[in-house]
């Protein structure tokens, strides 16, 4: 269950970004993960309330986007999507492929409510 560690890391990063941007609260956190990152979206969602409790992101919505696995064949040059345990070229069958996308574990963006906007209302 390393997703809790990852959530704690997300909260640390988001807290720092909020501080830099003079934010009052974090409203949304956008995450991108690829299946080959080893991070499970469902576990991340379950861990998030625990990790965010008492933080500036306590009431934030966590939006997780799963990116597809895409490979480039080093033998025939074909590009195709692939299964997590079969990164082989669907055109020529070669296993000598490179991953184009599918191992991401990214904090893509955050949405913040700022202090000064509130004071202007």
């Amino acid at each position, binding site marked *: 269950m390393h997703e809790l560690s990852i959530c704690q890391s997300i909260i640390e990063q988001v807290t720092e970004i909020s501080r830099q941007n003079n934010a009052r609260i974090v409203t949304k956190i956008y995450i991108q993960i690829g299946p080959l990152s080893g991070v499970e979206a469902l576990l991340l969602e379950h861990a998030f309330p625990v990790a965010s409790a008492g933080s500036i992101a306590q009431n934030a919505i966590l939006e997780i986007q799963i990116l597809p696995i895409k490979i480039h064949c080093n033998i025939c040059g074909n590009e195709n999507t692939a299964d*997590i345990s079969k990164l082989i070229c669907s055109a020529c069958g070669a296993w000598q492929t490179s991953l184009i996308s599918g191992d991401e574990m990214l904090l893509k963006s955050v949405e913040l409510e700022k202090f000064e906007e509130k004071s202007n209302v």
Partner: protein
Amino acid sequence: MCDTCGCNVTEGNRNLIETGGKHAKTSEGNEAVEVLQNLLHENNHRAAHNREHFDKHQVLAINLMSSPGSGKTALLEATIDALNTIRINTNDKLSIAVIEGDLETENDAQRIRDRNTPAIQITTGSACHLDAYMVHDALHELDLDNLDIIFIENVGNLVCPASFDLGHHLNVTLLSVTEGDDKPAKYPVMFRGSNLTLITKADLLPFLDDFDVSKAEKNIRNLANPAPVFQISARKSNDSSLEKQGINEWIEWLKQQIKQYKTHLKLGETVLPMIQKDHLHNSSHPHEH
């Protein structure tokens, strides 16, 4: 993936960077900030610091990973014995130290210390993996001078350790023959990132009818991993024909890795583990202590 060279920009998210600025307003009037940082940004930063520390002392760091009980500590014991024999016979000296990660007990570290080899035990409590911070703390207790290799024996687990960069240079994954030849297909994140897979307890193969070494290897190739697969046995047997199968091949591989590592260091480069192999960095950018 890292946050410094742009390698975290993939086909999956490139459009975000090309179409939008860093800051924008949402429909609710909130501020949207583009970040595009690895989820383990802080860990990775600390890992880079650890790697810099290893590189300064020219110590090759190897992350040993496997499920519990597949023979990581036994492999290290056999490795120490083999290196001792080599030193006595040829005066060729390789010095190693071990960082042991376990949920509880000092048992594994003690087994290494019993062989006059420095070992630092990290007990993680309930944590299922080592991270770069734990390794950093352990490094403060180790004298890196005059060492050639540090083995970091990770917590026995084929899932979580695969996601955490410790600052090491190479991943070595053990797969014992009693676990089944389909493990690479079941744990693709781990086996895709292995610089070497060791099929351990290979002396048991004649007694098993459901472990096919060629199938295990095919499952690793299916992950687009070209790394070697060795069969090995660390068994302490009286029968010399069974004893220490594959250990010589393993030691030769280690020597070759040290040579390649030092070549990279001379070029001002470091070595990154398999998954990050496309992103070789110059190790000279400073990190805070």
